[in-house]
């Protein structure tokens, strides 16, 4: 049957209703699935009737690996969870261990962490901007996004020695002090970012085709979002201003002045705008934090061998993608955690994907998936 094109085999025909549907496999190798994510779409013409997400192609067993690693070594695992927001991940983890051990973090270390994390948030949102532009078919945004992200990563390289996998935060502080000239370099970077941000806005934000493609797409009621456990920009786009930096303030966020941008309808355009405005806010946060950056030690007094007392802690923080939580159980006296549970925002946000995609066009499916800004490293862990 080599010559038989057998197209009927491609089409799922309901024997009762005679309705023909096309089942199509998107991913794990597909230009628009953001990593190794796989969707099985059931199409009725161009309409998506149903979608089954498949995850796990990037599963590395991070949680199980963590049970065999020292507390110092686990930071490297967190770098690799959400690999476009490494500092934000590391931060939540070290805060968890610090809480378990009751370690005080010096003020300077807190500010260093905050500055780097907010810069990383900008970098992450810039990457979103680029890939989202690409998802809608535009080519320039991805270059704009990567251009500015690269500038941020050069700063990171100067501080930590690595562009992405930093392993810089330590229990009780950071690995080493900021290099000379860090503050002026970041100030110059912020100016560049503002220029780049305006270019990015000019390219997409008001473009009619972009608005046509994104407005009113993928919106589901805010109550449903809450039920699905969606957090981060996706939830804020629907008008719920849940940001852990405000709702459950940690570190020195209370000392800084910023606002939480929210949308109204929760459609793809709102999600895009929330992230763009968050870039603005993060730029302002970093500028404020640079003004306030205190002197002093960068690492608190921490025992060389970390043995948290018996018990469990839960710590969460605002990742660029939402609420990243770490639940740490220590059996006491061991140098390794008994259990480390990660509540990943991408993973939880992904739960709402079928509800968002169902009934939309095939072209919208990639736009909606792109607007969720998932990182498979953290979804699959």
């Amino acid at each position, binding site marked *: 049957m080599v010559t038989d094109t057998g197209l009927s085999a491609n089409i799922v025909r309901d024997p009762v209703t005679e309705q023909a549907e096309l089942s199509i496999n998107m991913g794990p190798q597909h230009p628009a699935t953001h990593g190794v994510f796989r969707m099985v779409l059931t199409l009725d013409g161009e309409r998506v009737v149903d979608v089954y997400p498949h995850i796990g192609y990037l599963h590395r067993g991070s949680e199980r690996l963590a049970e065999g690693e020292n507390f110092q070594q686990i930071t*490297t695992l967190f770098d690799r969870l959400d690999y476009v927001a490494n500092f934000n991940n590391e931060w939540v983890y070290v805060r968890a261990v610090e809480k378990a051990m009751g370690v005080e973090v010096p003020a300077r270390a807190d500010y260093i962490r905050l500055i780097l994390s907010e810069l990383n948030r900008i970098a992450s949102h810039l990457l979103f901007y680029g890939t989202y532009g690409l998802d809608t078919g535009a080519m320039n945004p991805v270059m704009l996004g990567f251009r500015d992200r690269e500038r941020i990563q050069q700063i990171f390289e100067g501080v930590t020695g690595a562009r992405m*996998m930093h392993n810089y935060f330590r229990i009780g502080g950071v690995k080493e002090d900021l290099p000379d000239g860090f503050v002026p370099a970041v100030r110059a970077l912020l100016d560049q970012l503002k220029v780049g941000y305006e270019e990015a806005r000019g390219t997409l934000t008001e473009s009619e085709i972009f608005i046509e493609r994104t407005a009113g797409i993928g919106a589901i009621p805010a109550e449903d979002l809450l039920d699905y456990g969606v957090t981060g920009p996706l939830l804020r786009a629907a008008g719920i201003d849940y940001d852990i930096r405000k709702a459950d303030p940690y570190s020195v966020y209370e000392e800084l002045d910023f606002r939480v941008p929210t949308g109204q309808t929760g459609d793809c355009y709102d999600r895009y705008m929330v992230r763009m405005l968050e870039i603005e806010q993060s730029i302002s946060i970093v500028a404020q934090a640079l003004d306030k950056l205190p002197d002093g*030690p960068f690492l608190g007094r921490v025992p*060389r061998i970390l043995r948290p007392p018996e018990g469990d802690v839960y710590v969460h923080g605002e990742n660029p993608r939402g609420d990243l939580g770490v639940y740490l159980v220590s059996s006491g006296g061991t140098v390794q955690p008994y259990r480390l549970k990660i509540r990943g925002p991408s993973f939880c946000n992904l739960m709402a994907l079928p509800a968002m995609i169902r009934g939309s066009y095939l072209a919208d499916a990639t736009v909606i998936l792109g607007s969720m800004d998932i990182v498979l490293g953290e979804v699959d862990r």
Partner: protein
Amino acid sequence: MLGTFKSLLTTMKLALKPPVTAEYPSIAPALAPRFMAHPVLTWDKEVPEPYCTGCLVCMRICPTDCIDVAMMDNPKYAEGDSTRRKIVEYFDLNVADCIMCGLCVEYCNFDAIIMSDNFDASQYARPNLMYDLDQLLEAGKEQEAKGRWSPPEAKKSQRRAAAQSSGTPAAGADASGEDRVAAARAKAAELRAQRAAERGEAPPAEVTTTAPEQASSDTPAVDPRVAAARAKAAELRAQRAAERGEAPPAAPTTATPEQTETPASEQASADAPAVDPRVAEARRKAAELRAQRAAERAAQEAANGESSDSESESDNSKPGTDAE
């Protein structure tokens, strides 16, 4: 319409700016001074020998187990040229596994390991990504020549102490009393395990009757399979011995004080996740690897038919034993 025109106009303005990309292979990227590629080893020009004493701290802290180290007595110490009693015997780094986290550098007590800037370390075959001691030392000398590292004036432990007294602790140098006790206890347990392992392994060298031809003269005719089997047996014995040594603190442990205590005392401040099974595991792994290598060597020699070199090699081929 207007938004689209704005978009087009923004794009046009971009064309007037200079390119931000660099043509990579012809223009090398400017790396930050702190840039981290894979680690390399430093060379003490004064003695000359590596800084590394083979204390295994890096091996233990490495999250991906990509380092394999062994320690030996320093011949130069016996001659009085060096102050290092122990020296690294071999140091294997699997760059394919290395995640460039820098923990080994941070936890090294002897300034022996540094992060290189060798970011384009790609190879055509995976075995080429295994760097041995000589390659790592060569790379370390290159780094020094590039000015990315210079020999420290004070020892790392002294620097740590200074930093601690001045109020800004260096990387986790502080150890409270309780932890020091715990560390010492752990260290003692580890030593016991080690010795037990050695005892467990020492007999086979003498007792083994299955392969008399191997005993000491070690003819080139050693079947690699035999060697492998022997290594496995030794490894099992070592493991069992380690388990035994863990449960009851084996009584006579003062056999060879200076052999093991020197590195241990230097090592004490290190964050050794000194849980016995882990140490035993590491040792076992080392023994296994060494045995494997011995088997390989034996096989090679058998193939070569060279008998002259094999004697000196055979000393090393005894799995898991430091020369006593």
